[in-house]
């Protein structure tokens, strides 16, 4: 039993390494950022009501499209996102949507406990009912990897 748990732990940690880092990938090109790098180079700030926080929040990070363009030299349209908790989803039309990669919230770096180390949000709530958090499905938490794919 102990051996199984140990192996499982090793495997889980291997998948999630390096801890609290973000990997970008487009075809063969792979770029890895530490959380420190992401925090230091942040260049976009946005203040708005956070449905998951139930209050006004100052978000700091990057415009997602520009961030991918600058680091992968691609005008991304569709991305596949992997999260630390094993969640995986595909986001489409990201070049025409107001998406932001958040690394700090109210001046504090995001840890897993605050749904970090990085998170995607939409900077326009689009008239949605903020009380209904199931309407914010595209706010992906605990992002580990973003891979740009061709349509």
């Amino acid at each position, binding site marked *: 039993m102990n051996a199984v748990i140990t192996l499982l732990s090793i495997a889980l*940690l291997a998948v999630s390494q390096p801890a609290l880092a973000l990997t970008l990938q487009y075809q063969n090109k792979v770029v890895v950022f530490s959380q420190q790098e992401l925090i230091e180079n942040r260049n976009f700030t946005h203040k708005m009501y956070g449905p998951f926080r139930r*209050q006004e929040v100052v978000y700091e990070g990057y415009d997602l499209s520009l961030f991918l363009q600058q680091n992968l030299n691609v005008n991304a349209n569709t991305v596949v996102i992997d999260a630390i*908790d094993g969640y995986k989803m595909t986001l489409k039309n990201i070049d025409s949507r107001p998406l932001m990669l958040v690394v700090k919230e109210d001046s504090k770096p995001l840890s*897993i406990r605050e749904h970090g180390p990085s998170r995607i949000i939409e900077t326009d709530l689009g008239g949605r009912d903020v009380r209904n958090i199931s*309407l914010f499905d595209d706010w992906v938490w605990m992002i580990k990897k973003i891979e740009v794919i061709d349509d």
Partner: protein
Amino acid sequence: MTKPSRTLSILGVGLLSITVVITLVLVNTVRFDGSLRALFNRDHGIYDHAMVDRSKKYLLNVLPLIETLNDAAEENSLVREEALAQFDLAYAYLNIGRYLERYECVQPALDDILTLRDDVEKGAKRAFRYQIWAEILTCYDDVGRSQDELKANLIERALIDSRANQFWMNVGVISVFALAIMLWLLLEIQHRRGHKSETEKEAWQSRAMTDHLTSTYNRMALHEALESLVKQWPVANESVGLVFYDIDHFKQFNDSFGHVAGDQALRQVASTVNKLLPNPSNHYRFGGEEFFIVNRETEHSEVVALADRILSAVQNLNIENPNSDTGMLTVSVGVYMLEQRDYTAEELIMKVDELLYVAKKHGRNRVVDEFTGQDI
């Protein structure tokens, strides 16, 4: 102005009603469907009630890892890291604004998770903290139960809203149908009024154009017919013949037998001639005992033949007229075929009247046309 088609009006109203009803049904369905989607949206399965469940699952994942750490003779940092990661995930899925705002137990539960995490991080081997675990698990149950109740309330509210929607949709549908029926009734009334007015107008026009004694058209109708004819003439490429006939010695007939017999004779002659007329020909009473016939699309020989038949038919009526050479009522007839030049209505009457005069002058009871007129 063209009169609107009755069938089209009814069809229009029917289609309008159906369109409005379908639109109402669709709008209500979409609205209800939208509110249900918002309630039951589970596309990604991680929100609302699911989040507290996931937090619980991650926390329970820690238990075998702690057991492994406690049982191990040596430090196993990988298992410890994994246990800490599971604590963090448990914390993250409970650290939701909605839970913190709504449930008092959530903040203490989060603090408890950190306390347990701290124990594992420090590596202290200590007795199982039953009290703390119980507090956290109880909080999970409370939140889950409350979320279920909340969901049930929302569903109940949605159903109540849907019943209200259904009621107003029924009211809307009935109103639309009532409106459509009213509209149809108004159109029907308007149509019937229009039809009645049209019928009355036609009857009035017919009376105004008809000679009441002989039931032929009257002089006013003749004038209008000739005016219409000369307007089109000679552009209209057709053969038109005019016949003008007059009962011979009719004044003396009236003097001998009285006006009642005279009227009777006029009716008999007009009726007999009517039966001889081909289509399209119209029969007019010019005045007194004079009658006019306009034959359209008829050749010269046909018109002359008609005039001859009129002559014979009237004589064959065998109406006694002592002043006539034959002893019977006879007529004189003038026939004129229109030539390819401009005319006035008066000129046409004058032309055929001249030929009738020739027939009268040369013994009556005969047909005279332009050609025979020149020979006489």
